[in-house]
């Protein structure tokens, strides 16, 4: 017996009582650290972009604008978010299932592939040989290393998914848990299923493109490339949605003691994601040649909007579970008394709550509307699209992941944050900046301002073109919102990096609560009770506050949706 075997395979968390398995914990940590490293790279590119789109500043030259745009897209949408999600998968399949990780070896292999892939792609972009943006639409050609890096990264991530499913399998076989897997793990499983499909599409799109860039095969059909690439590009956003919703449920429990009202409804909603949300890749091809109206209408509707139903369900069940938890604590005054008593100073909570609001009211409503076959005519490739997805992926997913980090660092890295006052305001700064930027993009886009465009004054063009002065004001908002969000992001990176490497250790004792003693005690009592009363539901407790909010949401949605149809009806006739 060697020394390593003698070391215990898990430690028991002093805060939650859950078992943290050492080998999975290691991979959670490494993936989270790498995620933040690439987040920083993407953030530096982001500020350059925001200050270039702000026409009064117009910071970067055209070459650097497109290079930074490529760098930003690849690091934010692929590396930051998928590394973070892989960390979540490792956590969800071990600690929450009380199981060891299936294979440490596979963990290492996937980590090496993902790390090398991410470095290769970043290197070749910075070397100036891959100014093709994230989508790298053929026949635009990049250096082969660009495609190879992403392929290696995707293969590595696929191996993590395999390791995840294998761990679910051995956990069930070895009966490490009783009953069904926890909801958070179920949501992570939905994310993993979608990840397998997304990464497979990525391979199908990029492997032939890589071979073409090497000169081994002839050109790749641009229509087919778009079909397959968006299988990667949009489905990977659905991994984000599932991971984000899981984080909402997880943090709801951790910060308020909330419990899902009805497991069937929550899991059923995840099932709708698994089955139908990936059809939404069609949103990118709505004004494309090659695919007909039948394919477009059916796929863009996610099978009659059943995946939208799923998001609307989660958008109710998460806040409703918070409301029930608060009412059980005795905050029963009026419709919204419970709401004002939520732990707003706990950055883990505030980040997640802002994530729910931004994702629902801004990201969700715009996404479904812009993804309507005909309405897409007035949205495709305009700034309305980044306006939408900065509300979903950044204000939604990234902000939720930041909230998670405020608990992940003390619980998994076992380090306590410095400067907690700054941490408490960080979600508001970042979320606020993203809201301003996203609104600026959406309004500028409604004037037709294109996305991915260096100069909307079209300098040097033979036939002149330009935009209404109001569109330029909106682009100013993009710049200002971008600066605020950038500061919020730097604050997050600075705080977490400083804490992970130089924070005070809390090994052997519970993490210091972000909340005051009283609310911490009430929340812990609920978590304990929830454990005993598992299987019971709390639907008899009314949720008038949440119902009011979701009705307001539905009305907002309907107004925005039909206003867009009205705008469309004023256009030239086209078939």
């Amino acid at each position, binding site marked *: 017996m060697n020394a390593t075997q003698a070391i215990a395979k898990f430690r028991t968390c002093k805060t939650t009582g859950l078992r943290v398995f050492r080998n999975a914990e290691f991979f959670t940590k490494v993936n989270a650290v790498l995620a933040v490293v690439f987040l920083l790279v993407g953030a530096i590119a982001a500020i350059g972009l925001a200050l270039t789109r702000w026409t009064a500043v117009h910071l970067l030259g055209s070459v650097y604008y497109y290079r930074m745009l490529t760098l930003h897209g690849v690091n934010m949408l692929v590396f930051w978010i998928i590394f973070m999600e892989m960390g979540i998968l490792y956590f969800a399949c071990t600690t929450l299932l009380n199981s060891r990780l299936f294979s440490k070896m596979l963990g290492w292999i996937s980590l090496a592939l993902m790390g090398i892939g991410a470095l290769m792609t970043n290197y070749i972009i910075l070397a100036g040989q891959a100014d093709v943006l994230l989508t790298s*639409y053929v026949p635009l050609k990049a250096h082969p290393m660009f495609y190879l890096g992403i392929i290696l990264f995707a293969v590595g991530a696929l191996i993590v998914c395999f390791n995840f499913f294998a761990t679910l399998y051995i956990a069930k076989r070895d009966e490490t848990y009783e009953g069904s897997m926890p909801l958070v793990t179920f949501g992570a499983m939905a994310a993993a299923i979608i990840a397998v499909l997304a990464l497979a599409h990525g391979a199908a799109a990029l492997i032939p493109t890589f071979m073409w860039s090497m000169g081994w095969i002839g050109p790749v059909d641009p229509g087919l490339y778009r079909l397959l690439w968006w299988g990667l590009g949009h489905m990977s956003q659905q991994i984000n949605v599932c991971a984000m919703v899981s984080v909402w449920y997880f943090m709801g429990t951790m910060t308020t003691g909330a419990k899902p009202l009805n*497991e069937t409804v929550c899991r059923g909603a995840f099932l709708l994601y698994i089955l139908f949300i990936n059809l939404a890749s069609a949103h990118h091809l709505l004004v494309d040649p090659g695919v007909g109206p039948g394919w477009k209408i059916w796929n863009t*509707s996610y099978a009659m909007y059943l995946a939208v139903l799923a998001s609307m369900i989660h958008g109710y069940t998460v806040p409703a579970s918070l409301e029930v938890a608060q009412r059980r604590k005795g905050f029963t005054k009026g419709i919204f008394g419970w709401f004002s008593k939520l732990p707003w100073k706990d950055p883990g909570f505030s980040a997640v709550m802002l994530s729910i609001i931004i994702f629902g009211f801004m990201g969700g409503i715009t996404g479904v509307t812009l993804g309507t076959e005909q309405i*897409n005519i007035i949205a495709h490739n305009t700034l309305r699209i980044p306006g939408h997805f900065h509300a979903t992926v950044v204000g939604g997913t990234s902000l939720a992941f930041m909230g998670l980090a405020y608990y992940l660092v003390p619980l998994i890295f076992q380090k306590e944050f410095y400067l907690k006052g700054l941490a408490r305001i960080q979600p508001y700064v970042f979320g606020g900046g993203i809201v301003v930027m996203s609104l600026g993009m959406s309004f500028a886009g409604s004037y037709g301002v294109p996305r991915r465009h260096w100069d909307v004054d079209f300098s040097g063009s033979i036939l002149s073109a330009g935009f209404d002065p109001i569109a330029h004001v909106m682009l100013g908002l993009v710049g200002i919102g971008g600066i605020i969000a950038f500061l919020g992001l730097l604050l997050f990176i600075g705080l977490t990096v400083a804490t992970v490497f130089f924070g005070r250790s809390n090994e052997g004792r519970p993490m210091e609560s972000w909340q005051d003693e009283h609310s911490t005690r009430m929340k812990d009592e609920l978590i304990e009770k929830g454990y005993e009363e598992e299987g019971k539901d709390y639907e008899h407790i009314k949720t008038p506050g949440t*119902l009011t909010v979701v009705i307001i949401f539905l009305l907002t949605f309907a107004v925005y949706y039909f206003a867009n149809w009205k705008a469309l009806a004023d256009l*030239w006739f086209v078939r």
Partner: protein
Amino acid sequence: MSIFSPVGNWFKAPTGTERLWVGLALTWCLIMSVTMPYWHFKGKQNSTGESYKVEASAFLDRANQFIESNKVGEEKGVPIVEPSPGGDAYLVGEMWRWYPILKLKKGQTYRLHISSPDLQHGFSLLPMNMNFHILPGYDHVLTITPTSTGDFEIICNEFCGIGHHMMTGKIIVE
């Protein structure tokens, strides 16, 4: 708890407010599901994606022939071309211009063929903000009826290399 395993039978239909909301949300989803097919048949603005395979050289030849036989003028060296009402018109998007300038009549319907000999481009008609995607090798046909008069700008809204921002064009409607 979302972090603990539910045991026993937990499968049951929602009740109370949750049931109400699921019903309302489902109703809204069904309304949206009906709207798209309805507009496809009754609406005037649709993206049917009518398109055909085409060789770049064949498309360019046809476009140049169209320009020669229908040319009515020139602006800054770019030919202005007037297609016959109800007829076919050709528009080429290439690095980095849209050509020719089209001169159309309000209320007339045209079959506008758009393609690219090089990269992917985004056809974006301003200030109306109508957008269609253009692929090399695909003859994208828009059956289009201008309903307003004036000068309209075409810009490119899909990244097509370093001169992307210089790619503009024009449609004149009388």
